């Protein structure tokens, strides 16, 4: 278990890291409508979200229009909506034709008997099939159903199937790298301090070095990882900063006093 866990840790990191770039970009984009609320309103009205925009900037609109007019606007929007629902109903029917179909997908799960190869379940094929299903669903979101619930659970695939598939090739590389770094660290420590390899094992400082190099190898696999880690740390402290702001102000006014 330990061996399966330790190489898997960085994969979480890569999942965690994979999105922030995209997110921060889109965040910047969203600044645009925020700074220009009137523009935002116009834009969303084009999309037909008139009701949304009017409610959002309600206060601003009100300063211009008397309140009763707002009510009228809302009513009109609601009527529009009713129509759109019926058109949406049609859309839903269209979508229903596009449910995921696969002969091996039976009763909301993969029929494992159809995946057997030489008397054993071919887990690789199950993983492939599920990946394809999820990919398909991403492009064609399906209505959830209470009649035919999805019961497939990825945890039925044994852990060694995942490890075998994803981690063995990479583990080779990481082990090699860790061994090289470890050897040179030991060499340098020895040459600088004269403490031999065996003695180093009992030394607290050397144990720390060992820990640093192992975690370093795990976390930083490529050069980009350093940037990603930095961004991740920034992101985790971002919310704290937003909360601290009201207290920071206090210090500023303090230093002036």
């Amino acid at each position: 278990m330990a061996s399966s866990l330790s190489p898997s840790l960085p994969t979480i990191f890569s999942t965690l890291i994979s999105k922030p770039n995209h997110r921060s970009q889109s965040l910047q984009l969203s600044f645009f409508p925020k700074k220009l609320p009137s523009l935002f309103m116009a834009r969303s009205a084009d999309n037909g979200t008139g009701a949304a925009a009017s409610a959002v900037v309600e206060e601003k609109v009100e300063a211009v229009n008397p309140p009763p007019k707002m009510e009228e606007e809302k009513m009109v929007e609601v009527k529009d909506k009713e129509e759109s629902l019926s058109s949406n109903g049609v859309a839903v029917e269209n979508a229903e034709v596009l449910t995921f179909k696969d002969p091996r997908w039976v009763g909301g799960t993969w029929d494992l008997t159809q995946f057997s190869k030489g008397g054993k379940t071919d887990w690789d094929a199950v993983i492939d099939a599920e990946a394809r299903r999820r990919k398909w669903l991403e492009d064609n979101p399906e209505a959830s159903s209470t009649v035919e619930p999805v019961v497939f659970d990825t945890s039925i695939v044994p852990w060694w199937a995942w490890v075998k598939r994803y981690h063995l090739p990479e583990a080779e590389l990481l082990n090699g790298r860790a061994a090289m770094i470890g050897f040179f660290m030991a060499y340098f420590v020895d040459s600088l301090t004269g403490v031999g390899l065996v003695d180093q094992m009992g030394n607290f400082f050397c144990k720390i070095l060992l820990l640093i190099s192992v975690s370093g190898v795990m976390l930083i696999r490529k050069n980009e990882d350093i940037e990603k880690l930095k961004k991740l740390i920034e992101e985790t402290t971002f919310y704290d900063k937003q909360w601290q702001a009201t207290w920071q102000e206090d210090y500023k006014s303090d230093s002036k006093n």
Partner: protein
Amino acid sequence: MAAISSAMAAGQNSDFLGLRLASTSSEARNANRRRLSRQIRASKSSPRLSGRPLRVAVIGGGPAGGAAAETLAKGGVETVLIERKLDNSKPCGGAIPLCMVGEFDLPLDIIDRKVTKMKMISPSNVAVDIGRTLKPHEYIGMVRREVLDAYLRDRAAEAGATVVNGLFLKMDSPPAGSGERYKIYYNEYNSKKSATGEKKEMEVDAVIGADGANSRVAKEIGAGDYEYAIAFQERVKIPEAKMEYYKDRAEMYVGDDVSPDFYGWVFPKCDHVAVGTGTVTHKSDIKRFQAATRLRACDKIAGGKIIRVEAHPIPEHPRPRRVLDRVALVGDAAGYVTKCSGEGIYFAAKSGRMCAEAIVEGSAKGTRMIDEGDLRIYLEKFDKTYWPTYKVLDVLQKVFYRSNSAREAFVEMCADDYVQKMTFDSYLYKRVVPGNPLDDLKLAINTIGSLVRSSALRREMAKITA
């Protein structure tokens, strides 16, 4: 989830201290301590008000304003509550935790529905019913905002607050620390007279801004902006037979199709359901997300008739400034909405009450003038009490709403009884309960396992496109 929360709870108290103290020299810190304590002393010896009680204007009559006005009035402070629309039904999920019923002594008849089953539905439509661990008397209350707000306002009026149907326009602030009165300007709407309202002004000693996300009070004190999410909601009247399913059930849909950074929901209301979704990053696509939410709930709400469409901004984090001189912000105006779940009613009501308590205390039951130090006490108390909750939910959102694969792992994790128990305990009672360390460890391992599996699948999916 629980593992993270309890693991973090330990770090959080120190974190909170760090919140105020981090990245400043100890010199500044001491100066601040001195200043605060000096101010507190100062207010205790601050001038007695002769012949009149302290007068406080509460702008906004939502849960925050209502709770604040009630506490103020009970504490002997002359209270004026100004609300623009007394029958306003704000677009809002309307879920309140169980502890709010007790703490605010709410009558049971304002709760339309008691939700005991929460369904989480993943991008690949794996559905998990959360709520198996609930005890018979535990539930999430669903209220209509017009009912709850009116109830809290009425109680404030009963306690002695004056409720004014008016629209706050602006205010004149006296020089900071001068102790002079604020002058507020508002339009009073009287049903007998014209609809345009009557211009009025009033002098008050302090102002509580409880006027929501588009707060004018916040603008007046230059409180700065916050990033906000837009929530879009349609109230759908569905056939009786389909309503049966939502009798005690709420649904949460997660997935990139529904919202890239939040969730889509179907919440039961008194005689209809509210179907909605929210987003911060892709506001202009909200219509598409709403369509996707409807599609995901397709069969369950089919044949429904939309009776109302609403949208509202939801703050993502507190404003850079929440207190200035004798003006304080509470509720949505301050930005007290949690990440991840988007919950705000309880925190609004609590912040209103805390702020009012600080004023009552600082003014010695309305007999003395208050100053910024008194209002800072409210800020400090609020941050200290609820910061861990906000932080945990922020971490959860960052980890689990990031991608479809993370969401799959989230739903997988929620199937666990221990997670459900911890989630509901912390939601219903608003306290971070330390869990069983062994269970926490097990949960941590399972969660990592789920995340790894789903991210492995995600990589596999990426290969398919290539």
